[in-house]
């Protein structure tokens, strides 16, 4: 009897853990090498080649391409667009996430589906929606033309299209977080006499701040990099309605490679900065959560 009970003794934890990674060394190296090769091929080499091509003809050509008025205006337009789209979606995202996570109401699932819509449709379709609405042949086109208001093929159309495609980022980031946190703290605040705004500012937002920043960063990255939707509504007027991704395309099509890659390198740099910000936030986010768990435990 005693012998069988010994057999049934569970394997110590340490041993179990090592068993899971107890592949032959060759296998482990092979898998690591595969992952590295994949990363190099699809990430590092393309990224490096952008900078290589941009600087191939020398620093002078590179700087000149970036100082060109059309390039500057494309950079400016991209920043303006992000500066409008990101705050707009920040406000919307917080409002939507708050409503969905903290309250029960009819049509909630419809609202969630609607928020996901921009992820589901192709960006080109998103752009076409605005052409169908505001284009000269579209629903509101004749009225807009009669009142001399330009939406598409002008800055407002670019902003609208960008807002649409970046719509879900903040809300999608916040909803699971807020749902996990539950509504108890808010209920307590209200019970103690806090107003709605006080509850939002003092309880809800501090609890989700890193998730919020994370959502904003993702939203910003997409707003600056969006191509498809913006391409449809832009009209490609140089110096007026060309964003950076569109400017890169047109330069490339004109056989102006050095300039195309120079502008692309700025976009890549913006992406790298975003990535660094994202990693920082993730680190802080994790750190904060860790300390809050410890505080709770204490």
């Amino acid at each position: 009897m005693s012998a069988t009970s010994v057999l049934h003794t569970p394997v110590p934890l340490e041993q179990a853990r090592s068993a899971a990674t107890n592949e032959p060394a060759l296998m482990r190296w092979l898998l690591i090498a595969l992952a590295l090769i994949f990363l190099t091929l699809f990430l590092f080499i393309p990224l490096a080649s952008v900078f290589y091509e941009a600087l191939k003809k020398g620093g002078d050509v590179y700087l000149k391409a970036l100082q060109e008025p059309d390039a500057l205006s494309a950079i400016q337009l991209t920043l303006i667009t992000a500066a409008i789209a990101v705050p707009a979606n920040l406000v919307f995202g917080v409002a939507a996430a708050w409503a969905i996570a903290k309250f029960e109401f009819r049509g909630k699932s419809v609202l969630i589906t609607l928020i996901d819509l921009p992820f589901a449709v192709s960006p080109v379709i998103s752009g076409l929606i605005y052409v169908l609405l505001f284009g000269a042949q579209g629903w509101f086109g004749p009225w807009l033309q009669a009142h001399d208001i330009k939406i598409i093929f002008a800055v407002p159309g670019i902003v609208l299209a960008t807002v649409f495609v970046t719509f879900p980022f903040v809300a999608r980031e916040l909803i699971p977080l807020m749902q996990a946190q539950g509504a108890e703290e808010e209920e307590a605040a209200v019970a103690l006499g806090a107003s709605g705004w006080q509850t939002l500012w003092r309880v809800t937002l501090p609890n989700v701040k890193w998730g919020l920043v994370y959502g904003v960063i993702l939203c910003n990255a997409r707003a600056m990099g969006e191509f498809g939707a913006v391409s449809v509504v832009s009209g490609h007027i140089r110096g007026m309605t060309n964003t950076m991704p569109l400017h890169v395309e047109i330069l490339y099509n004109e056989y102006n490679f050095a300039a195309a890659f120079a502008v692309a390198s700025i976009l890549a740099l913006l992406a790298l900065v975003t990535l660094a910000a994202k990693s920082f936030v993730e680190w802080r986010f994790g750190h904060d959560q860790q300390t809050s768990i410890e505080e709770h435990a204490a």
Partner: protein
Amino acid sequence: MSLSPLFRLLGAALVSALLSASASADTTLLNVSYDVTREFYKDFNQAFIKHWKEKAGETLIVNQSHGGSSKQARAVVDGLEADVLTMNQANDVDILAERGKLIPADWAKRLPNNSAPYTSTTVFLVRKGNPKGIKDWDDLVKPGVSVVIPNPKTSGNGRYSYLAAWGYVLKKGGNEAKAREFVTKLFGNVPVFDGGGRAATTTFAQRNIGDALLTFENEVQLIQKEFSAEQIEVVYPSLSILAEAPVTVVDKVVDKRGTRKQAQAYLEYLYSDEGQELAAKHHYRPRNDKVLKRYAATFKPIQLFTVDELFGGWQKAQKVHFDDGGIYDQIFTKK
């Protein structure tokens, strides 16, 4: 209520963006064009602005929009306020008359030379030293020769190449059946179909696929400038197609904006000695004989036929050859 200033700020930003976009000054022109015309129009706009200042005493700003040609035409139909449209194929101008009623149907008759102030033609690019000995159209259909042509369904460049091959056979005394056989063979030698001229160039020059690339004469210079000229050389066939680059004033827009006078003068200036000279400098064949002679070294004499002459105009050519179920589709389903 602490959020309301933010809303107000956003509202103000949107409104100011709206206003700045719609408050266009009276003296701007927008020239909507296709991909590769930028360098030319950059120079031409400067020249015209100077000319107009001297002639009318008015300071103009000319804005440019570039993109894929059919996409650009479509944008104008959808409300992109182009004062003038400068394309490389009459089809893309016709759409303005058909879909948007923006210009009259007989727009091509309003300016000399079918409203096409400059032209180009389809030529061959081959590898240095021409290892496959490609001299003329007949060499392209030989077995073992691979030819890069962009897809005629989606690219004007491809359509011109296709019609050039077809017309070559007709011009040599062949009939339609012979032409069809020839074009079938030619397209049998195409290893990849790229969507546009630009992508086809990458296939040929960067990915090193194919023995010959069919493209416009004016793009050859751009290609040679970007890719090393030592690797690629040009071959002029005995016969090719005249690619007319049509231009038009967009009537509905200029009447609304009150820019007809300026837009009209802009296009007419393309026909002036200076306009023609600039076109030639940027590798477009000028209509003016004097200028053409001066650039004889750039533009090798080549026998050219037009789409109107052999195919009854672009609308008919499009319908017979490239529309769904047209001859191009038939050739392909048989393959």
